């Protein structure tokens, strides 16, 4: 009897409490969810904020758009390399074997780095930027060539769709960087140092890379737009491409009324850089970096960046949309002075 009363009381209690408890549970779960999402987003923001240093010298020397791509290293008596069909830079008549196309075409980056030394010592910002690219490209290999080879073997044994292309890309790095050793001290710290040195000296691509990494030369609010304007005026395709992962890109695309899905922002921007003359061929540093650093490799070894993106990244029905955006970016930044259009 007592048990029955208990059951009755218990049962009626559950009937009275449950709807409120469920509502409470839902509300609290939603709050927990919101808090969690906020904390993750906040963390990401914090990471971004932490990466922005407060510069003590915001009035860093700005680049002179009249001299992109030139540097005193061209005076060195190095043998002239044939850059071949890669020479299609819009804003840079770059036939210098130590210039940007020389870097792309070099089969021996140790030799290239050695020949770049005089210009680097002379304080040439373009040389500093080119050296930062050499160090960035070769650091993974040079730190431990044996470990690099082990990783290559590991990746070759893994069941990867683009294993062949990845193997070829890693082989290219091992070949081009083969004369570097751990004693050369190639590291990310050195890349950062050279990049900043180049940017402070006036290298537009280096400035663009710093901005994209959240470490701009100046923290003034109009600096990103001013940099984009200078890059557009100089028609510097490499600098334009270096901006592709900048947080400002969505806003810039929006300002130009280019409605591109967020996941295609960076690749749309990079494709515009390719069309403006950046080296985006099958064996380019860009394709090698995407493949080796990012695991984003084409299964077709003959594809350049643009072909690869249209083949593998963008759904067929979205191609026209992206193509229109790329055309608009090239039209706006690809040669003629900004503001003249």
């Amino acid at each position, binding site marked *: 009897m007592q048990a029955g009363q208990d059951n009755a009381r218990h049962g009626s209690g559950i009937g009275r409490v449950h709807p409120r408890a469920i509502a409470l549970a839902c509300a609290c779960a939603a709050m927990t969810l919101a808090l969690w999402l906020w904390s993750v987003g906040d963390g990401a923001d914090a990471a971004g904020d932490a990466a922005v240093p407060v510069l003590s010298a915001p009035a860093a020397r700005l680049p002179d758009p009249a001299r992109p791509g030139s540097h005193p290293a061209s005076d060195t008596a190095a043998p002239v390399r044939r850059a071949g069909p890669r020479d299609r830079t819009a804003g840079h008549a770059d036939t210098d074997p130590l210039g940007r196309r020389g870097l792309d075409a070099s089969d021996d980056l140790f030799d290239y780095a050695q020949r770049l030394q005089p210009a680097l010592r002379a304080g040439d910002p373009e040389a500093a930027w080119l050296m930062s690219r050499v160090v*960035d490209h070769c650091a993974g290999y040079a730190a431990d060539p044996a470990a690099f080879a082990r990783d290559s073997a590991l990746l070759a044994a*893994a069941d990867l769709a683009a294993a062949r292309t990845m193997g070829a890309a890693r082989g290219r790095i091992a070949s081009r960087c083969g004369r570097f050793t751990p004693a050369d001290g190639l*590291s990310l710290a050195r890349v950062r140092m050279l990049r900043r040195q180049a940017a402070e000296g006036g290298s537009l691509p280096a400035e663009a890379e710093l901005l994209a990494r959240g470490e701009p030369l100046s923290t003034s609010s109009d600096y990103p737009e001013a940099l984009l304007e200078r890059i557009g005026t100089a028609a510097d395709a490499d600098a334009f491409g270096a901006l592709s992962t900048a947080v400002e890109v969505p806003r810039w695309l929006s300002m130009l009324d280019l409605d591109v899905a967020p996941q295609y922002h960076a*690749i749309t921007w990079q494709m515009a850089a390719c069309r403006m003359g950046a080296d985006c061929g099958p064996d380019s540093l860009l394709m090698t970096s995407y493949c080796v650093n990012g695991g*984003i490799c084409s299964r077709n070894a003959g594809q350049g960046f643009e072909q690869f993106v249209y083949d593998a990244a963008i759904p067929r029905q979205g191609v026209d949309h992206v193509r229109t955006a790329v055309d608009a970016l090239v039209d706006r930044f690809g040669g003629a002075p900004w503001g003249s259009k």
Partner: protein
Amino acid sequence: MGFEVTRRRYAVLFWLLLFAAYSVAAIGVTVLDAGDKAYADLSQVEPVTVHASEDRRNLGAAQMAAMYRAQSGAPFASLTPGTTLRVVWPDGSSEYVVVTNPAASDGIQPIPGTQRDAADRPLDAGRAAPPAARDAAPARPLLD
């Protein structure tokens, strides 16, 4: 009567926590666990813990992310810039990181304050990473 109310409150709390845990789990954050066979032997991953320098952690996380993309079948759509991941290092320590640039060797940045040691205890949020320059070997004159 007092016991009954307390019991009911605990029951509500239990279901509440269960529901909240389910909600968080359902959202899903990609976890790259160095204990997985695919990542365990990668050279940039194997020696790294949450106590390593930021450069080493960036490289290790980027190498795991590259492997993840390469295995995904849709590499462009995997771990795109802005994606938040949880990385578990070989010793069990872990942290959240954010993808910044898939094409860069250090295209991943740790999120400050999310580092936890192998016993899942939070590290000091303000802990400074060792200077990256210490990782570099003495340079040959070539790059001086």
